[in-house]
């Protein structure tokens, strides 16, 4: 694999005629087309804008400019392969494909090629176990954390017990949507609620039968693991059958402005979980306005600044840049290699003080990564949609996932992966 490295660089140069300076390369495998574009665009914009800010304001990270080559995947695994292959030759430091399908595909590839795969809040959940997944990081939270956080929130709403309640899971019928099922089944067994599964096939434009089923079986709560156009349709369908919005909770990928706006005022009260803050109240936006937007360097149309998914793209960019910074600190030079950036990810220590410095006070939970822990604190906040003001209002404090349920599941799944691929556990 490595012997072709120079050949690759040459090929990448002839193919893309990219300038090859000494710089930090963080590819953005984004999607601005297809049925998932409504969610892909704000994320990609936030990701790009944060690195633009670092370049414009600070001259990059540790004096090295950051280049963010963008590659369109359309949420499609075949295009994802092409994007990975076309960017890896540039010495890409970290990948953030924003697709669980592409993540599954890239896990063996990045492990063999030595690139970091950073999948905050998505991807393969058991990658939280750093003992098995050396190159993959998914802190601060994963799908199973999300399921546990939502369950705790609903338990609070139901007055402390979910005994005898019925919860329906409306999910994208793919690896992503199926991820929380195991966890919710465990929780259903423990807390005595009934779980009903309602899969929605890609792309999710047709959900009449699923919501007819909801109307018939009258669940107390509906949890949604949706993405792209499926979110908008589901919220509209819930409105149509007059399902009470405050009992309808989405995972963090089913909670962007673009998902709720199309349903208008009726979407008021729809709740989602998030692992970071949102809105324009953070000091960093002053700098983004000054160095990025006013300078005309904003990514995309520039109309997504401050939205939920923009904040998430920015969050991912912030973590990657902090990991690069950490790597520069550990290794004492600024032109870090992918392997050194991996060390930076593994020893990342994101404190509240550091978040304040970055202009993001209380934006996220502190992270203290270790060799074994690639999963982070696993906590999130609930946000309720305020249709009148068109913004997300915080509906809870930070809720931590129940690790007594999730940790054994992670251990089990990662052990299966290690066995399949003959991986010896590290960090012992």
């Amino acid at each position: 694999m490595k012997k072709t490295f120079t050949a690759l660089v040459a090929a990448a140069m002839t193919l893309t005629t990219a300038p090859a300076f000494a710089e930090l390369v963080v590819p953005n495998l984004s999607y601005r087309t297809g049925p998932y574009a409504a969610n892909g665009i704000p994320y990609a914009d936030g990701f790009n804008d944060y690195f633009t800010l670092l370049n414009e304001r600070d001259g990059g990270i540790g004096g090295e400019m950051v280049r963010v080559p963008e590659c369109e995947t359309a949420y499609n695994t075949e295009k994802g392969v092409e994007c990975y292959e076309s960017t890896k030759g540039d010495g890409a430091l970290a990948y953030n494909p924003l697709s669980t399908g592409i993540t599954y595909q890239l896990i063996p590839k990045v492990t063999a090629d030595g690139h970091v795969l950073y999948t905050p809040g998505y991807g393969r959940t058991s990658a939280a176990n750093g003992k098995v997944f050396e190159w993959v990081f998914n802190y601060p939270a994963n799908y199973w954390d999300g399921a546990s956080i939502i369950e705790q929130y609903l338990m609070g709403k139901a007055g402390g017990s979910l005994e005898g309640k019925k919860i329906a899971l409306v999910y994208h019928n793919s690896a992503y949507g199926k991820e929380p099922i195991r966890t919710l089944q465990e929780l259903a067994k423990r807390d005595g609620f009934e779980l009903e599964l309602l899969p929605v096939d890609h792309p999710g434009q047709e959900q009449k039968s699923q919501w007819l089923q909801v109307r018939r079986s009258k669940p107390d709560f509906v949890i949604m693991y949706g993405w792209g156009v499926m979110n908008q349709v589901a919220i509209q369908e819930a409105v149509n059958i007059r399902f009470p919005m405050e009992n309808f909770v989405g995972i963090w990928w089913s909670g962007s402005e673009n998902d709720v706006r199309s349903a208008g005022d009726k979407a008021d009260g729809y709740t989602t979980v998030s692992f970071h803050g949102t809105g324009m109240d953070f000091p960093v936006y002053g700098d983004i306005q000054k160095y990025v937007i006013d300078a005309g360097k904003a990514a995309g149309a520039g109309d997504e600044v401050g939205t939920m998914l923009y904040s998430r793209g920015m969050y991912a960019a912030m973590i990657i840049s902090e990991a690069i910074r950490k790597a520069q600190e550990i290794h004492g030079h600024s032109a870090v290699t992918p392997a050194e950036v991996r060390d930076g990810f593994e020893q990342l220590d994101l404190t509240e003080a550091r978040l304040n410095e970055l202009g993001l006070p209380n934006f996220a939970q502190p992270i203290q990564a270790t060799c074994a822990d690639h999963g982070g604190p696993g906590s999130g906040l609930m946000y309720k949609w305020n249709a009148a003001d068109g913004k997300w209002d915080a509906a809870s404090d930070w809720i931590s996932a129940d690790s007594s349920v999730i940790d054994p599941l992670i251990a089990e799944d990662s052990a299966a992966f290690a066995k399949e691929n003959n991986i010896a556990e590290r960090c012992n």
Partner: protein
Amino acid sequence: MFYREAGDFKTSYREDSQTFPIKFDRLRYYVVLAIAFGVVPLLINDYWANAVAVPFLIYAIAAIGLNILVGYAGQVSLGTGGFMAVGAYAVYKLMTAFPEVSIFIHVLLAGGITAAVGVLFGLPSLRIKGFYLAVATLAAQFFLVWLFNKVPWFYNYSASGQINAPERTVFGVFVTGAQTSAMAKYMFCLVMLTIVALVARNLTRGTVGRKWMAIRDMDIAAEIIGVNPLTTKLSAFAVSSFFIGIAGALFFAVYLGAAEVGEAFGIQKSFLILFMVIIGGLGSIFGSFAGAAFLVLLPVFLKNVLVGTLGWPTDLAAHIELMIVGGLIVTFLIAEPHGLAQLWRVAKEKLRLWPFPH
């Protein structure tokens, strides 16, 4: 000047009925083979293998498979994606159940399993044809995708329903998994494609192929002259599904490495391969290659030109790319309704007379 029979004397029936009867054509064929086997593997890198060569080879296998059914036997099928999924899940189950057996054998077995499934779904073709058969095969597509989503046994009860190809070798060289070199991937697919193309070409030239074409051209007349529609139609389904199953197995195991049935083998895959066959040319092996090349290489080429060279924003480039590919398909089909293969035939005719057309 080129492609001339003059001076090319045949002294035996065998010579007279070979695949490429014209000397120049035969020479060109050997040159292509020599380059594909001798030169490309030495030059290929990860990008060229994973983004261009391997998908092209695999789609070419699938297109040959579908061409046998649609182009030679005249049975319209929209179930290609589903049959590819059968190949993929079959090879996954075989790879995980019998890790010590060579992947080469597993891929062939996966083709065999797909052939059996194809025959099963080909049974309605004995009673219905045309659009109605297309609808019946569409049902196969949806049923198979639903099945692989619904029954956890097919994906070994993994939490996410994803199937991941474990590392397997042929003669000690990795051909699946992350450690596979670009050359190994390419060679494995190329060998498969060569075998498939040779078998397909010779089947279609012989009795079996003539029966298929007789059924395609007029089934009642074919039956009157003694062609058994039952065996003929079902053999077309079997052979076609066998090749499509091989393509599906390679697509999952060698190319993607991880797959999810709805995303990788959905209805859009059926249409994509049908378009390859139609654009390439119905009833032509060369057309299968040309169609696969057109629909695999053109988007990658356009992306590299628009984004890489011209520096356009990725979303604009992606949309323009769809428009250009769509426009070219329409233009090609208006200019030559019989596909790229017919263009090639016309070009050969012209080259024969060139530079003295009269």
